[in-house]
């Protein structure tokens, strides 16, 4: 059976490099309009780039180079808007492409950081991206001015047209792009004030929608190369186990099977997986299911047993202090009323819709991969490390991700694909994980519990608060060098004091509390944790904002007023909370049950007001959510709305259904039947208020997830008088929670 090559009709170009393997990927986003009577430039050689950020062809098609990954969050379109804005180009002729991490390396990292996470896609690169585009515009104008022999300062640009008013001459970007690319870049450029934006700041439609409506969008899973074979992998199901043996002879004669191979552990010694390489993935996968395999040496970890360690941490003497002021002990001693509650957050899987995959080709002097990755440069390093080849002999062709959510920052599946390609030099191998592999071998959102205590005085004022977090540190497992005297500062995301350092200023607590202690008893299970969209802000918001609700009711005060009393120093957070509450109908006597939450995360202020019904059978209907976001600067309001809406699906899926448990070291939830995700029947109407207050750049892909669950949990209390503190809700009867 011949595997059909899709390269030509999918917009790839195949060139012949020294090894015959150099293959580049053209932009997947084509311009949305082509003039029917456009001039034919096919006789001309293509223009050279203007600079690293911008290529402009003869027909004025502007190709914007995008270093960050597009995984659905819309960064690709937002960055292109920022470039087009500074360039003054025709938005209808903008397209994009990913420069490879190898090109970035060869050009002294001219495109900066490829890592796409932490809601940094735009806020972490807007300065140099806009400056790059402004420089390109200056060079285009200078090229036109040189041609006309007039001062550049007398020329203006708009919509890809350069005009010299004095002489009445005009030209287009495409005509001067080659000459512009020869000029020295300007020493200084200035970028526009967002108040003057015409393309950025507008609710432009995404550049990558069209191909997603017809099946034409190519994901990693869809890569087809000439002569490519397919692989399915099975990794040791038990934590820490290794491959002991397998009986290749039992499956080698099955249809399509080419090779059965052991696979090195990307993170440790020896082999911890076995893979079947076959003509088609289905053949590989079927043979893999039939393959007799034995494992050895795993860890019999159980989440049920680990509960005792988490509980121990809740009251342990030793803990890392993340935020402290005043005298909590004294405040508690003087309290008129003490309030206490304990909450949990179970392990979560990212569960990207596209399971992990990579296609790799290896020869003795070059290794290249096609990969959906959130971190192209880390993937490149992984290719070099796995292949043993110098990094200059490796490259990564990035493709759009079928979801990322933090999972695709890791390169375990990249290394495995390279190991497999090394088994068959010269033959492209596509490694595609099954859903079960993806569920079992995640980098799981860590599990924690929190015990929160608060002191109220006789007037219902909060006089002291202690939050003890117990549980897993992500940094201790993944980036131990980032620990500070053993402490994982990221555990306190959203709860840190201001002024610690610039890197965590976007993770600070916006409430002012007189007597405060927030500490963390680190309890690390042998489970591999990861950065899961929203990261530690998610559970910290539940711990803080559900407890603020409990305090307000214990104090006999309105939860909105109670929160605002502690937000006097944070008017922007107060503003989003008030906006969500007002639009959400907070305080109206219509018999509806509502809950509130506000947080500051990833540099943005976010809030939600949820409205729920608890049915007679104890089940939940989330009727409506109003969400308010102040990201400082809004590059594409329509895409911010989409991110906010989507954040409720991710956050509420975890609250309703999401839980990964381990028994005897093995993940119990191995597919969507047991690790369920919210369906449309459970999805509330979401209204989004975008209220950028200017002067800063906050992230939007993640912060709203944190307010989803607390707002709904607080609304459930308003509906039932019962507190849900044990997540996920799953089939809990909420009348008797």
């Amino acid at each position, binding site marked *: *059976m011949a*595997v*059909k090559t*899709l390269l030509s009709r999918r917009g790839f170009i195949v060139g012949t490099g020294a090894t015959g393997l150099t293959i580049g990927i053209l932009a997947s986003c084509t311009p949305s309009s082509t003039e029917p009577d456009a001039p034919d430039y096919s006789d001309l050689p293509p223009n050279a780039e203007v600079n690293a950020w911008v290529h402009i062809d003869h027909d004025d098609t502007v190709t914007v180079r995008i270093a960050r990954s597009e*995984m*659905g*969050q*819309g960064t690709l379109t937002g960055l292109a808007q920022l470039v087009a804005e500074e360039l003054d180009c025709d938005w209808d002729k903008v397209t994009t492409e990913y420069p490879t991490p190898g090109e970035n390396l060869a050009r002294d990292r001219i495109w900066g950081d490829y890592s796409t996470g932490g809601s940094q896609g735009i806020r972490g690169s807007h300065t140099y991206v806009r400056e790059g585009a402004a420089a390109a515009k200056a060079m285009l104008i200078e090229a036109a001015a040189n041609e006309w022999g007039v001062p550049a300062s007398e020329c203006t640009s708009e919509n890809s047209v350069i005009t010299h008013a004095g002489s009445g001459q005009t030209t287009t970007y495409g005509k001067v792009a080659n000459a512009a690319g020869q000029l020295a870049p300007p020493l200084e450029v200035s970028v526009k004030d967002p108040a003057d934006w015409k393309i950025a700041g507008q609710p432009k*439609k*995404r550049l990558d*929608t*069209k191909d*997603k*409506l*017809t*099946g*034409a*969008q*190519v*994901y990693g*899973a869809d890569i*087809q190369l000439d002569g490519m074979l*397919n692989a399915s992998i099975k990794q040791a199901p038990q934590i820490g186990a290794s491959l002991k043996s397998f009986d290749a002879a039992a499956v080698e004669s099955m*249809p399509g099977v080419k090779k059965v191979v052991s696979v090195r552990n990307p993170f440790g010694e020896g082999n911890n997986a076995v893979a079947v390489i076959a003509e*088609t*993935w*289905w053949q590989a996968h079927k043979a893999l299911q039939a393959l007799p395999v034995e494992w050895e040496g795993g860890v019999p970890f159980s989440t049920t047993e680990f509960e005792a360690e988490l509980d121990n941490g809740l009251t342990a003497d030793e803990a890392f202090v993340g935020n402290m002021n005043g005298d909590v002990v004294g405040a508690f001693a003087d309290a008129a009323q003490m309030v206490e509650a304990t909450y949990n957050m179970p392990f979560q899987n*990212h*569960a*990207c*819709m*596209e*399971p992990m995959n990579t296609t790799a080709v290896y020869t003795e002097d070059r290794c290249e991969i096609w990969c959906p990755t959130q971190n192209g440069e880390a993937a490149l390093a992984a290719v070099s490390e796995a292949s043993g080849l110098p990094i200059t002999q490796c490259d990564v062709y990035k493709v*759009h*991700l*079928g*979801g*990322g*959510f933090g999972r695709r920052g890791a390169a375990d599946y990249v290394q495995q694909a390279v190991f497999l390609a090394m088994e068959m030099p010269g033959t492209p191998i596509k490694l*595609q994980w099954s*859903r079960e592999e993806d569920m079992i071998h995640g980098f799981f959102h860590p599990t924690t519990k929190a015990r929160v205590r608060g002191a109220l005085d006789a007037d219902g004022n909060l006089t002291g608060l202690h939050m003890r977090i117990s549980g897993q540190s992500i940094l201790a497992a993944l980036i131990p060098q980032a620990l500070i005297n053993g402490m994982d500062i990221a555990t306190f995301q959203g709860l840190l004091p201001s002024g610690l350092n610039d890197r965590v200023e976007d993770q600070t607590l916006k409430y002012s509390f007189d007597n405060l202690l927030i500490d963390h008893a680190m309890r690390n299970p042998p489970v591999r944790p990861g950065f899961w969209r929203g990261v530690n802000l998610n559970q910290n918001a539940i711990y803080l904002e559900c407890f603020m609700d409990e305090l307000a009711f214990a104090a006999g005060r309105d939860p909105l007023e109670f929160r605002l009393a502690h937000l006097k120093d944070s008017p922007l957070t107060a503003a989003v909370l008030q906006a969500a509450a007002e639009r959400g109908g907070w305080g109206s006597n219509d018999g509806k049950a509502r809950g509130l939450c506000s947080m500051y995360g990833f540099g943005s202020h976010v809030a939600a007001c949820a409205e729920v019904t608890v049915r007679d059978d104890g089940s939940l209907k989330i009727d409506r959510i109003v969400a308010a976001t102040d990201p400082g600067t809004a590059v594409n309001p*329509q895409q911010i709305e*989409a991110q906010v*809406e*989507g*954040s*409720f*699906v*991710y956050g509420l*899926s975890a609250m309703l259904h999401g839980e990964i448990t381990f028994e005897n070291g093995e993940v119990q939830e191995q*597919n*969507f*039947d047991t690790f369920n*995700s*919210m*369906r*449309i*029947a459970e*999805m509330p109407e*979401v209204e989004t208020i975008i209220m950028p207050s200017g002067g800063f750049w906050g992230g939007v892909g993640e912060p709203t997830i944190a307010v989803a669950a607390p707002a709904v949990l607080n609304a459930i209390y308003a509906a039932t008088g019962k507190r849900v503190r044990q997540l996920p809700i799953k089939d809990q009867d909420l009348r008797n929670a």
Partner: protein
Amino acid sequence: MATLKVNGKSVTVEVEDDTPLLFVLREQLGLTGTKYGCGIAQCGTCTVHVDGAAIRSCTYPVGALSGEEEITTIEGLSEDASHPVQQAWDELDIPQCGYCQPGMIMAVAGMLNDNPTPTDEDIDAEITNICRCGTLARVRKGIKLAVDKS
């Protein structure tokens, strides 16, 4: 060996009978618009039409097809993305990562073939596809817009 009618064309593929239709479409016919998501008919990314009805192709053995059925994939839903569901999806800019959307679009189009004016309750019962980016709120709006366009 199986003979199928896919997007109006008759094709013959050499394949074992128990191969799920999904992998025949993706790997034998190169129709990669239809996606693998779970393999157990849970998530719906693999949704295609068999005689106009939405089915989950990841658990549909090709041997269960007689060869007479009209199979429609996302690539064959329309010329130029002109199906009302595709138009509505375009107008509301629904896809985020987009991986689930071919399945979502085919599920909705299949529902509308059978029930051109679904109620919210019909949508809740019929559309059970998973989208982890979280387009679900817009999907409901998109279904209503597609009904208006039909």
